């Protein structure tokens, strides 16, 4: 059992998400930065889809009541165990009543904490992921609160403590170049509008959340109106409402919407854009569908090998 002394501003239970319910308006949820989440699970010997915590900007303080292993990945933050500094991207073996404190993100936004065995909350529609707006899944459909207790499932995987080398740790880039495929409504923008999107930096706004990354920069000009007949919104869709400011839709997105979508961020770059702090900048580069598929398969392969590879379920 984990006793949560202070969860941080928005800490939720996530697993790899619930597929198949967008047609009912229920998004997949799951971690924004899948790579960091999966590596955390592997470091504690869990299957990739075991439930862990996603923390936003500031990590939690908690105490463990039995021997377990944890790993802290994602955004760069200080970690202490009983006030002694401990590394991120490493297996930390804890004993009963050890107190862990994860500090504020120095670089990046989303911090992940995995626990050996995984957090044991009921599966809802096949997943333990929290969908905050829908009050669904995770711990009673909400973010963690002070005083919550989290049960861990029995740990069955291997125990092989390890620490990633500096070269193995995914870089947190201050101004990442994000790869996009143009469309599906690129024809609703002027050529100049598309050029504006691809040649200027866009700044992350503080109102960004798990639903969407809101960006500010030179307005992207529409050719004929910003409204379309509402249709489905893919992960990474870049919506451009009337003000010309792009919104990249993420894991808790609305399933459908009525604004024009200029381009789609490749799934392999969702975690990178999700780690850009408010005030940070991103640039967009267009790639063809075939190139996007190649980048995705490259991403999948590197993920398959990360942290010594996955544990079979």
């Amino acid at each position, binding site marked *: 059992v984990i006793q949560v002394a202070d969860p941080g501003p928005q800490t939720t239970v996530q697993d790899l998400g619930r*597929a*198949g319910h*967008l*047609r*009912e*308006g*229920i998004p997949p949820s799951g971690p924004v930065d899948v790579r960091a989440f999966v590596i955390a699970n592997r470091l504690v010997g869990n299957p990739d889809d075991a439930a862990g915590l996603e923390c936003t900007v500031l990590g939690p303080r908690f105490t463990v009541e039995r021997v377990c292993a944890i790993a802290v990945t994602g955004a760069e933050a200080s970690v202490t165990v009983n006030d002694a500094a401990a590394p991120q991207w490493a297996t930390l073996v804890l004993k009963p009543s050890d107190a862990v404190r994860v500090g504020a993100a120095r670089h990046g936004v989303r911090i992940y904490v995995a626990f050996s065995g995984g957090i044991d909350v009921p599966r*809802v*529609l096949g997943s333990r992921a929290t969908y905050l*707006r*829908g*009050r*669904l899944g995770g711990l009673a*459909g909400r973010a963690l609160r002070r005083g919550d207790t989290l049960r861990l499932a029995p740990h069955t995987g291997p125990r092989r403590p390890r620490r990633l080398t500096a070269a193995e740790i995914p870089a947190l880039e201050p101004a990442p170049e994000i790869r996009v495929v143009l469309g*599906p409504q690129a024809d609703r923008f002027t050529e100049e509008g598309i050029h504006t999107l691809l040649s200027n930096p866009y700044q992350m706004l503080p109102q960004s959340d798990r639903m969407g990354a809101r960006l500010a920069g030179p307005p992207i000009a529409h050719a004929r109106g910003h409204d379309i*007949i*509402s*249709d*489905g*919104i*893919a*992960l990474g869709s870049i919506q451009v409402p009337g003000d010309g400011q792009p919104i990249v839709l993420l894991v808790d997105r*609305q*399933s*459908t*919407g009525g604004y024009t979508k200029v381009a*789609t961020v490749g*799934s392999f770059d969702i975690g990178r854009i999700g780690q850009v702090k408010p005030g940070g900048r991103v640039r967009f580069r267009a790639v063809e*569908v*075939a190139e996007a*598929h190649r980048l*995705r*398969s490259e991403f*999948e392969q590197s993920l398959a090998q990360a942290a010594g590879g996955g544990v079979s379920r």
Partner: protein
Amino acid sequence: VALCVELGDAISVEINTRVRALEYLIQQKGPAGVVETVPSFRSLLVYYDPAQVGYDALCATLTTLAEQAETAVLPPARLVELPCCYEPEFGLDLAAAAERLKLTTDELVRIHSGAEYLVYFVGFTPGLPYMAGVPERIQLPRLTTPRVRVPPGSAGLGGAQYCIYSVESPGGYWLLGRTPVRLYDPEAAEPTLLRAGDRVRMRPIDRAEFDSIAAAVAARTYPPVIT
């Protein structure tokens, strides 16, 4: 990874029926690599796994299925009857809408509850039905100033479209009444009530019946009326 199959560029029963037929064919035939589908008015968003199927191969498969969708026969639609209380406390815009339409509130309620509405698709928020089929006599442009908060269950009109809010959200539709039935209940085994292709009718109820149904819904003893 997803691609979008567009079957038209208008809100019409014909185009939407083809969208739902295409989704039905995909459900029946299970083409390789398709992970999830999201129908909307005139298009079907198809999520797929590029490790299992290439873009060009999937496009070819979906083109063939889209052709078959023109004549495909869908399973019979469900008819869902939703009780709706049109008292002023819930129908916040009922009186204003009636005045603008030069109808009495009773006439507006009779026309609204006399029509049958097709659920084109469910989306935006969990369980929210996008419906059309609003009789022309009661069509109104959307509110000029949207409300910041519309309570769940509110039945709203905007142009030819009709929706019932499934969760508290902002909204620009004219609110005529409220149903005590939950269109989205995160604690239910099946959290959403309505599906694309359902037909919906509203049954006018008074405040006392609203309260008794609301109590049954809260106690999870209210069976939705579906035929």
